[in-house]
């Protein structure tokens, strides 16, 4: 498995391949905690937020919301305590970057969180990992202890007036707890379901206090932004998508792994065929899900020869999204009907049950998919699937409903043949001739 940077100096992945990369010594030897020192010595919280704004850093969890702006929403004059929460509930299918960042370079996350806490005036921060990442809690706890022993966490960090605690917490294994408000509920010990927005967490989050919830990769980008300066960091990427992005590449490529690319990397086809070593066994590329399972699937025809730019704008233009950067490559052995069925079962399993469309809709979708897979597909089932999806999309309480809808919409639209094959029923040995698909 490959872990490293392509097309740029490794920033996020600078230390991951070093020996003993988890230890504070390795981290410090390689520029660690310099940014924190700089912030505490010379920068006011507003200046820190200003640098993050300049960096055009966008949230790496999936929604891509500008991080500086999110930090700016936290009311400065609020008498309530403020919290920074790291969202390490990395549950998007196909995404495993945060895991490696935490596993191999935990101190980078700690430094990022401390800088964020300083910028937002927070005295307590939380790392919330998914239930399956329990082992990472041990790694993080050890790193936090190391940091505390070195005077980098807890009371009077680096001898300054700034004090901040870092706590770790694991979920019980629910995809929905990656949604920031559901995460906060879970962190508070409540049922993991999303909260109503507004109020947004920046105003009333954890325990009703102003809270910023950031993805691991977002926070680990912060030390470099501080060290390099926001503008310089932004210039690594494009104007609206600054810096570098870590992609988790899986599926039918010769060299899957964790890749750090500059934002705006020029060609997705080149990335797959050259950087990732191409498709194994001489097979053809069929489809790519570029940003974790919740984004639109891209057929090879939208990639090959199209010079798809790998950043927020480029992927939207190409008909998909960056999402969480979970880059899934599929060759021509894949039946898109089956892969979509698999994904839909995931969403059904992970629907929290709060709102009607997502709870009942995903249940229904899976039942239809299973029926089709049993060979009982009816000619109008594709239309039925699209109708159900249409009644979920945009009407659910949180984005999970949308996330469940988009893969199905795009799969039926982009790969009608894969569905048709399952739907056309045989009558007397002859195909019924009735078209099972809407005209697209």
């Amino acid at each position, binding site marked *: 498995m490959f872990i490293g940077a392509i097309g740029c100096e490794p920033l996020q992945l600078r230390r991951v391949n070093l020996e003993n990369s988890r230890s504070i010594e390795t981290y410090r030897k390689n520029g660690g905690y310099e940014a924190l020192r700089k912030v505490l010595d010379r920068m006011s919280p507003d200046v820190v937020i200003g640098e993050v704004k300049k960096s055009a850093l966008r949230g790496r969890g999936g929604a891509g919301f500008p991080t500086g702006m999110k930090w700016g929403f936290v009311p400065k004059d609020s008498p309530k305590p403020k919290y920074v929460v790291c969202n390490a509930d990395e549950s998007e299918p196909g995404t495993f970057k945060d895991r490696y960042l935490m596993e191999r370079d935990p101190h980078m996350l700690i430094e990022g969180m401390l800088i964020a806490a300083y910028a937002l005036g927070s005295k307590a921060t939380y790392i919330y990992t998914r239930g399956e990442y329990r082992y990472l809690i041990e790694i993080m706890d050890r790193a936090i202890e190391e940091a505390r022993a070195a005077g980098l966490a807890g009371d009077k960090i680096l001898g300054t007036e700034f004090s901040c605690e870092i706590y770790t917490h694991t979920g019980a294994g629910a995809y929905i707890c990656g949604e920031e408000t559901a995460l906060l509920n879970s962190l508070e010990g409540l049922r993991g379901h999303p909260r109503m927005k507004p109020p947004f967490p920046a105003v009333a989050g954890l325990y009703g206090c102003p809270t910023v919830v950031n993805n691991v990769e977002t926070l680990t980008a912060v030390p470099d932004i501080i060290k390099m300066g926001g503008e310089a960091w932004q210039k690594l990427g494009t104007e609206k998508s600054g810096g570098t992005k870590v992609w988790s590449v899986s599926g039918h490529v010769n060299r899957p792994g964790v890749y750090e690319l500059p934002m705006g990397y020029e060609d997705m086809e080149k990335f797959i065929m050259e950087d990732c070593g191409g498709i194994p066994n001489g097979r053809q590329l069929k489809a790519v899900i570029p940003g974790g399972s919740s984004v639109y699937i891209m057929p090879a025809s939208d990639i090959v020869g199209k010079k798809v730019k790998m950043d927020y704008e480029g992927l939207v233009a190409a008909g998909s999204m960056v999402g969480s950067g979970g880059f899934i490559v599929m060759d021509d052995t894949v039946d898109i009907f089956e892969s979509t069925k698999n994904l839909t079962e995931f969403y059904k399993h992970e629907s929290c049950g*709060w709102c009607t*469309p997502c*709870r009942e*809709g995903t249940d*229904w979708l899976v039942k239809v998919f299973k029926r089709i897979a049993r060979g009982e597909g009816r000619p109008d089932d594709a239309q039925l699937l699209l109708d159900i999806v249409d*009644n979920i999309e945009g*009407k659910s309480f949180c984005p999970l409903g949308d996330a469940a809808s988009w893969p199905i919409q795009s799969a039926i639209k982009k790969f009608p043949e894969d569905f048709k094959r399952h739907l056309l029923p045989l009558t007397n040995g002859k195909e019924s001739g009735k078209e099972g698909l809407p005209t697209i």
Partner: protein
Amino acid sequence: MPAELIKVTINGQEFETDKGARLIDVCREKGFAIPSFCYYADLALQASCRMCLVRIEKMPKLQTSCTITCTDGMIVTTESEEIEKAQRGMVEFLLANHPLDCPVCDRGGECELQEMVFDWGGLEERFTEKKNYAPEKFLSPIVANDPQRCILCKRCTRVCDEWMGEDAIEAGGRGSHTVIGTYGGWLNCSQCGNCIEVCPTGTLLDATYRHQTRPWELSRTISTCTFCSDGCQLSVGSRGGEVMRVVARDRYVNGLNGEFLCIKGRFAHPFVNHEERLRTPLIRYKKGGKLIPATWDEAIRYTAAKLRAVLDAHGGESVGVVGSPRLTNEANYALLKFAREVVGTNNYTATEAFSLVPFFENLGAPLATHKDIRHAKTILLIGGEPEELQPLTGRQIRQAVRNGGAKLVIINSVPIRLKHAASQFIQIRPGTEDAAVLALASKDDAGVAARKLNVEAGALEQVRQHLNDAQGDVIVMFGGELGAEAQSLLAQLSFTFGEKEGRRFLLHPLPLFNNSLGVHDLGLMGGALNPLEILDAAGAQLRAMYVAGSFLRTHLEGREDALSKLDFLVVQELFQTATTEHADVVFPAASFAEVDGTYTNNDGFVQRVRQSIPPIHQSKPDWMITAMLADALGTDFGFQMSSSAVFLELAKQIPAYEGLRYPLLKDESNPVQARHALVGQRDVSAQLVELRSLVEGIEETGETTTQTPPVGHELFKLGTLTSKVPQFHLLAAGNPEPESVLISPLYQITIDPALRDEAAVAGD
């Protein structure tokens, strides 16, 4: 502060509305129907059913109108093809795994989901897959659950949490496997049944009524609850002379309690048609003999003759007349009239647990209504346990704290459940509630009071400070622990603290019975003797007694033989009790479901009791029995067999009820408060001196308990009425979990009949 008016456009029409008003409420108020399941006024927003979707200009997606507050210039569309498609889509989703078993569902005919489908019509079922299955089961002796019908609106879990503060039911599982369940599989709560009431579908069901009848077969009568002093309005559903159920569903009744009722109001009604109801008048011809059935004529004649004999031999003062705070104002008025005009005695009283006469004599501030409590800013509760004894008041307090941010101060000798809502809880030594009032009324006595209360003086000072600094409504509530002097001082508390801009003192006594206030208003509690004294006088000064209802267990303790010393005892009752044991004549009285009349609740609201079924067997309304007896003794009461005539006369005689008529009381959503005379500032220094010496005499002993009393320790207590309901026996026995939750626990757990016999005579 009046809200700012803004303009919103709904479906092309412009309306003015308050800024910040909830869009769904505004649309509905203006006549645009918006479907919803999970939205419920004054509960936390849920926004999960996704039915109330509307289009708001400049917003990217359809929005749930329950979560949107109106802003100026908002342009809203509530009816369009897009919206209807979305809403139909939601109903289709809700029906997907729904069993569609309306023909056998208890909620069929009054189900919100069913109505939604019927309203729209033309719903095609495209869901042809296998439905998820979950068996129907019992959650408690009172709550049954059919999870398949659930649409997960979570009204039930929210009322459980927000109204009751119990959090006994919660959703379990996730996704399409989410079910409403309990912690540990069996529902251990106060069994109020509010979850059943607010359920829009047939998911949570009244296990006592299940499969008994269909809702459209019931005739419904709006009436007033006959248990505690909160006076909840309810709808009695009856069929063929039988009370089948009691609900507070807002489509049938809209009283001060909304859809709230407690276990007693909702589930204790089976006493009405119970087989042990007295069927005919009974006469005990010989002391120590048996009660023998008689005709009304004979019983009335016999009683009149016996009373006449006592009157002739010993005079009017030898006869005691005892009313009951359980009975209507009409019944008690007739008794009072009987005592004054027929017998000519001052020896009358009512079987009330405690007297509020000193309180009303010094009433310096108006009585608080339940609505006032909900919107109060400060609530002081001295003694009492409203969540068990006046559950509606308990809910209003919780809502005031939770939704209104009210400060709740509790002074109690027991850590009652409500303390979790309190911003200050002061636990005092048992029996020292009077000292707490002394500390509030007189700053100089705070030291000695604190010593007697066994609390720090600072805590009481803090309460005084709270009351002094308070803005908005300050509601002072108290239970039955207070003595006469303390009651007087509390009634005058507003003058102790003096006038202050923006602060209003309101008083809220917490008597125990449905018409406790009524017997005080009528003056029945102002007789020469109190219930204990009247029992002590039996056989001495008193030779005969006429009792409507029964003495309480607490009255008869240590006085078990008192009634047997009488020459003649007449009782009118529903059941055999400890009081009828000594009776020479027993008249079968009609229960609240069989009579017309009024009760006065602890707000001072005079509310109607309406006849929903004809009197059972040969029973008659209490006032009628009294009038018949008076007639036989030569006095025509002129009631012409009509309770409205009784009330008319009552309203002429009783100043607080002046001008009231039945037609003025007909709207339960707009109750009429009796005009209790406010006496203004009184000189209460004598009471203060008396209270001071009382407090100084309190012994500084007594164990305080740290144990919060279990849920239902008062609610589930078996009394004359509740002991007639088998479910109450299970609850009183600790609500044991049966072996199988698929079968009613009544068939699995044996009820000890001795318990009922013991409770039946209690009289409470």
